[in-house]
């Protein structure tokens, strides 16, 4: 590797001007731009969530009226779904890590990548501008007759969602072409890291499903402006048809949310148990299977919406089938740990938390696939708890794990390990305290999107509000020590966790603008630790300063033993 890391040119210090940041074509810098904006969105929408919980602390009016409450849960929903959770992992970690894991200099279309970022920021601003225009309520699903009757601000929300959808499509196209065309020599499909596989299947869903939300928004526009009578029941249209259009995008969208999380968990479990992923081929192909099966099951959102019984039955059966590959993935992760050498660093803690919380989310998902149970549980707090277990317990926990895992490569600094573990504990306790009581209020009959609730649900809602404070504390603690590590953190080595993927083994502490001096030649799979024994033989213990730099023999292309 080149000279001592502090003086060498890297992607951060080679050009510090604002213009070089705002007009950058470097996938790493675009990842950081996304990180900044998406963290702000997460902060804002998270605070809204705290207000929701604060209002629900007791029945009756506590801190706001019903109108304000309805708007807050709607904006919380729209921002969290469209502006945070869909772009979060692919745009931040995907942009930063994917080209390096492929051994490429950059994504296939760098300019398109920058355009996607500005489309995303533009879309988010349009959604927020809707607040100035008027009140927006109706949930993030903006169902047909209500979203046609409500004020014009819904036009801005849907236009913002349309523009962000465009950004999502372009990122998807970019990633698919990058993975197909820009792999380093020797990097066959079977040697790809599983994070790349998951980004590939996410991109497939982004490309194939997002256009339909585009046409749904366009038809909603025309419905409101011209009254074309396709969704509006007063003109003979069918509101259930709107739900079909909406959920044909939105259910695959939840797989856009969870698939990258699967990828991160495979990376974390592989690296921290220093063991080959059990059934690598199955785990990779099940991501692709989920991407395609994900488009067959949207009807389970319409079991009580007035759908024909034939459709409900078909969708119920297909929903069960998509549970299988997900279940087997979880089994494979656990079996990977068998006879591994497991090191409980902070990222690994998040991986274990993912396995617990996502399993609860998954099992309740299977429960909701059963027709009569969904008839009782649909649109109650049970559903709110289910999708928070899958989205926050799944996607956000995996994103935090990924952020911690790649933090040394992004910033070159290592965060404080003990604070990391405390925060992980806080998040685990806070999350369960917030959302497990909602399973019970939901199955006992408390509907969702309720400003006021009958008295018998009070104690559980109170518990949930206290939980939300603990969860918030955990999140702020993470923000605290990560920002602290930026300025005062210890310098991390180029490969602090002992991982085998190219972004760790073949780059400096902070990667150079084009990632690699010479395009690396790959001679083994991403998790073949037994083939890279020399990587681990001499380094001292200590958290994050030990370096697992690959000896130079790799560069001359001499194949490994």
């Amino acid at each position, binding site marked *: 590797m080149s000279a001592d890391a502090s003086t060498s*040119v890297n992607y951060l210090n*080679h050009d510090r001007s604002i213009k070089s940041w705002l007009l950058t*074509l*470097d996938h790493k810098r675009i990842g950081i731009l996304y990180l900044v904006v998406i963290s702000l969105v997460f902060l804002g929408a998270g605070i809204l969530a705290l207000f929701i919980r604060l209002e629900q602390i007791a029945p009756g009016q506590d801190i706001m009226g019903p109108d304000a409450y309805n708007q807050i849960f709607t904006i919380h929903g729209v921002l969290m779904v469209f502006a945070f959770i869909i772009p979060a992992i692919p745009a931040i970690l995907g942009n930063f890590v994917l080209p390096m894991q492929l051994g*490429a*200099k*950059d*994504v*296939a*279309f*760098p300019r*398109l990548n920058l355009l996607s970022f500005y489309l995303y920021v533009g879309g988010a601003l349009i959604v927020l501008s809707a607040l100035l225009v008027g009140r927006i309520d109706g949930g993030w699903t903006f169902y047909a007759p209500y979203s046609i009757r409500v004020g014009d601000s819904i036009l801005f929300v849907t236009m913002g969602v349309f523009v962000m959808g465009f950004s999502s*499509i372009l990122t*998807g*196209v*970019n990633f*698919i*072409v990058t993975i*197909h*065309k*820009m792999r380093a020599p020797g990097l066959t499909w079977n040697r790809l890291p599983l994070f790349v596989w998951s980004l590939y299947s996410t991109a497939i869903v982004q*490309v*194939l*499903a*997002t*256009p*339909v939300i*585009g*046409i*749904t928004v*366009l*038809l909603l526009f*025309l419905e409101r*402006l*011209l*009254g*074309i*009578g*396709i969704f509006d029941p007063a*003109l*003979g*249209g*069918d509101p259930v*048809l709107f739900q*079909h*259009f909406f959920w044909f995008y939105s259910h695959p969208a939840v797989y856009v949310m969870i698939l990258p999380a699967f990828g991160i968990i495979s990376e974390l479990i592989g690296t921290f148990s220093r063991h080959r992923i059990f059934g690598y081929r199955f785990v990779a192909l099940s991501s692709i299977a989920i991407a395609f099966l994900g488009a067959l099951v949207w009807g389970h959102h319409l079991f009580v919406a007035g759908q024909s019984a034939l459709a409900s039955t078909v969708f119920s059966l297909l929903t069960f089938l998509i549970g299988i590959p997900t279940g087997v993935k979880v089994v494979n992760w656990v079996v990977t740990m068998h006879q591994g050498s497991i090191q409980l660093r902070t990222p690994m803690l998040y991986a274990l938390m993912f396995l617990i919380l996502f399993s609860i989310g998954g099992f309740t998902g299977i429960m909701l696939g059963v027709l009569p149970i969904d008839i009782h549980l649909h649109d109650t707090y049970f559903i709110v708890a289910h999708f928070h277990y899958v989205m926050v317990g799944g996607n956000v926990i995996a994103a935090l794990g990924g952020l911690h895992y790649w933090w040394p490569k992004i910033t070159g600094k290592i965060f404080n390990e003990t604070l990391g573990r405390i925060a992980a504990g806080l998040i685990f306790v806070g999350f369960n305290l917030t959302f497990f009581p909602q399973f019970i209020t939901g199955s006992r009959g408390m509907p969702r999107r309720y400003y006021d609730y009958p008295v018998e649900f009070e104690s559980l809602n109170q518990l949930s509000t206290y939980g939300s404070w603990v969860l918030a504390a955990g999140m702020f603690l993470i923000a605290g020590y990560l920002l602290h590590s930026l300025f005062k953190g210890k310098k991390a080595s180029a490969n602090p966790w002992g991982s085998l993927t190219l972004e760790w083994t073949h780059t400096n502490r902070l990667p*150079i*603008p*084009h990632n690699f*001096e*010479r*395009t690396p030649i790959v001679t083994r799979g991403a998790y073949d630790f037994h083939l890279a024994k020399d990587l681990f033989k001499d380094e001292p213990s200590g958290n994050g300063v030990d370096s697992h730099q690959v000896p130079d023999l790799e560069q001359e292309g001499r194949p490994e033993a």
Partner: protein
Amino acid sequence: MAEASTVTADRPKHLHPHFVSSEQQFDAAKMGMWLFLVTEILLFSGLFVAYTVFRIWYPEVFSHSAELLDWRLGGLNTIVLLASSLTVAMGVHYAQTNERKKLVRALILTICFAAVFMIVKYFEYTGKFAHGVFPGVNFDPHGTAGGHDYAAYNIPFAAQFFSIYFVMTGVHGLHVLIGIGLFSWIVIRANKGHFSSEYYTPVEITGLYWHLVDIIWIFLFPLLYLI
């Protein structure tokens, strides 16, 4: 950006820094375009689903209202669009064989055909607007023309047919306009000699986009005008 990587001296001008070879760049651009075409197909699929759902609910209203659409104009438009598809394919052929003059002529011919398509569309639309056939709530057909008593078409759910007709052909027309814009930009660059058998990706990609716009019309024409 400092060109850090050591690269062979004769790196062709059009090759972007992060690609290894222009072959890789060409394939990447084509695959990216095909992926974008799939998103266009799925965008229109929403409209085809809406059409099919309402047609299965009200088959006689839809086939009856379709009589109001002049299939001769639709047929003419189909031929015009197929011809423009041919001239685009010829254009790509000429680009590959370095015949710059013929390439420019083929592209200009394509733009003319597209313009003819839009003009025919304009007359169709104004013909309908004159008789009150508007998309949405202000749909009240009146008067008689071309052997049709428009008022007779004011039956329930006919408004839905014409709304779907206007939305489908409107969005398709918008894509034709975008096509015209793209081709004029390509013609200017072709005129300046930017394209050769070495590098003709923009022509090929715009060609792919145009063929897709033609395919959408191939499905629109029978569904709306004929059956």
